[in-house]
């Protein structure tokens, strides 16, 4: 360490040392006999460096850059990310305007007759479905346990355009004030029926679709407790969202255990509302899309 300082001092006293081999000055640094040549930085490098300095000054002037005590410098372009977003949104809106005006003006049941408008609606609905609905109803809308299939013509609340629109906009047992609402009692948990009675009525329910033998005691209980919602024939009642128990489609499963459990605990599935989350246009597009899937009425 000491030695090196001595050498450096010597170098600065006697002027730069010239490397004999290349004829270039050395920096005067030496490590175990190795010396460093003092070549200048390449020209192209220097130019690029200077250009970036100039560019950064242009950037400071044109774009928001320096923080100040009350915010930041705005830049001559007045650019902000939020403005850029608004412009891009306006541009898309502009492109959609040709359809949107007609789309908004037309009642839902008239749109299918206008080929272009209908295509516009279905495209918007299909992409919004993937983002917002697929996690519950499945990517192909085929549903899964607890979440209904939207492709078939078995509807819990109804498959007309208005019905679908209402289900989507206000939700089912959602937080919305105008939500669709109904509640099946928890016959076991709330002590309305005992275990044997629930077993009987379970068998009766299964017998409606031929999955179990007829159960007379169950039929009696069904008439008293269940028919008011699910109907005498078990065909369900859309006005209270009571599903058809006589078909082969089950929201919560068709095994004896599954049906027993629904009657014991009740389920009351929740579908979130989309009013205020998705725009009115989107909700209408989704309505047409769901309606088009095969089960629309």
């Amino acid at each position, binding site marked *: 360490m000491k030695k090196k300082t001595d050498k*450096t001092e010597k170098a600065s006293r006697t002027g730069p040392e010239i490397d004999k081999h290349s004829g270039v000055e050395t920096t005067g640094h030496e490590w175990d006999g190795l010396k460093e040549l003092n070549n200048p930085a390449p020209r192209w490098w220097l130019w690029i460096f200077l250009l970036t300095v100039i560019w950064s000054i242009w950037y400071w002037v044109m774009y928001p850059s*320096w*923080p*100040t*005590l*009350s*915010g*930041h410098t705005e830049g001559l372009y007045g650019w902000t*990310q*939020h403005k*850029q*977003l608004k412009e*891009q*949104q306006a541009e*898309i809106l502009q492109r959609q305007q040709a359809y949107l005006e007609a789309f908004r003006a037309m009642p839902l049941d008239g749109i299918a007759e206008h080929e272009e408008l209908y295509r516009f609606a279905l495209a918007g609905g299909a992409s919004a479905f993937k*983002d*917002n609905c697929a*996690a*519950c109803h499945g990517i192909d809308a085929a549903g*899964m346990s*607890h*979440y209904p299939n939207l492709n078939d013509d078995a509807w819990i609340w109804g498959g007309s355009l208005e019905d679908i629109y209402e289900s989507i906009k206000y939700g089912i047992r959602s*937080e919305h004030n105008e939500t669709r609402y109904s509640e099946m009692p928890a016959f076991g948990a709330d002590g309305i029926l005992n275990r044997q009675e629930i077993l009987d009525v379970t068998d009766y329910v299964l017998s409606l679709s031929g999955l179990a033998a007829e159960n007379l005691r169950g039929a009696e209980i069904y008439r008293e407790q269940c028919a008011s919602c699910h109907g005498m024939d078990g065909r369900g009642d859309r006005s209270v969202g009571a599903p058809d128990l006589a078909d082969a489609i089950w929201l919560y499963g068709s095994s004896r255990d599954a049906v027993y459990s629904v009657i014991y605990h009740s389920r009351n*599935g*929740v*579908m*979130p509302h989309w009013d205020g*989350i998705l725009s009115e246009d989107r909700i209408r597009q989704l309505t047409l899309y769901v309606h088009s899937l095969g089960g629309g009425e």
Partner: protein
Amino acid sequence: MLDKHGKIERNSFLLLFLTVIVVSIGGLVEIVPLFRVETTIEKVEGMRPYTPLELAGKSIYIREGCYTCHSQQIRPLRDEVERYGHYSIAAESMYDHPFQWGSKRTGPDLARIGGKYSDDWHVAHMIDPRSVVPESIMPAYAFLARRGARLHDIDRHMRALQRIGVPYTDEMIENAYWDAMTQASNDPYEADALRSRYGDNVNIRDFDGNPNKTTELDALIAYMQVLGTLVDFKTYQEAQ
């Protein structure tokens, strides 16, 4: 002037001194504006601090490293706004310590997940993500449904946040434990008191479908369901 660098490089104290000066210019430019943070936080209606249960949920979110796969910041880009809703604004995370913005998105952004799905869905999804999203690669967190939420010292967590500027009142802190129990209950005893402290929009219900216990899953879902729902964007947009 330009060839003085040799002198600076040879004098370590001078070099140190000048380095400190240069670095502090950069530091000051970045730090000073933060002392005037009111210039970046929008004035909005609806923001409130998390309820004790939501706060417990946020701690679980951090503990489990959900932020390693999920961001909580919708950027002002057209496709993001299209997918997730209004872009996030600074005011929405002003009570988050630490904030959960992030930039790693293995899963979707969660800044506006509140209200998008039902509690039932969240329960099924946390217990086994594949049961509702067959192609999901998110890990299962079934144990959250069994573990009791850590509420015995939630008041101290709130006290710490109060000291760094989150507007918890002493009344909120004193009632923290019971507020949390109330919020996770289907037939709450003290719902009005909870609402009077945190507003009428507080979600009060048994989030995890197990009324016998206030679990970590209750807390986490309460947190999920409030994310991005507080600010009233109708009034915000009008003010813009």
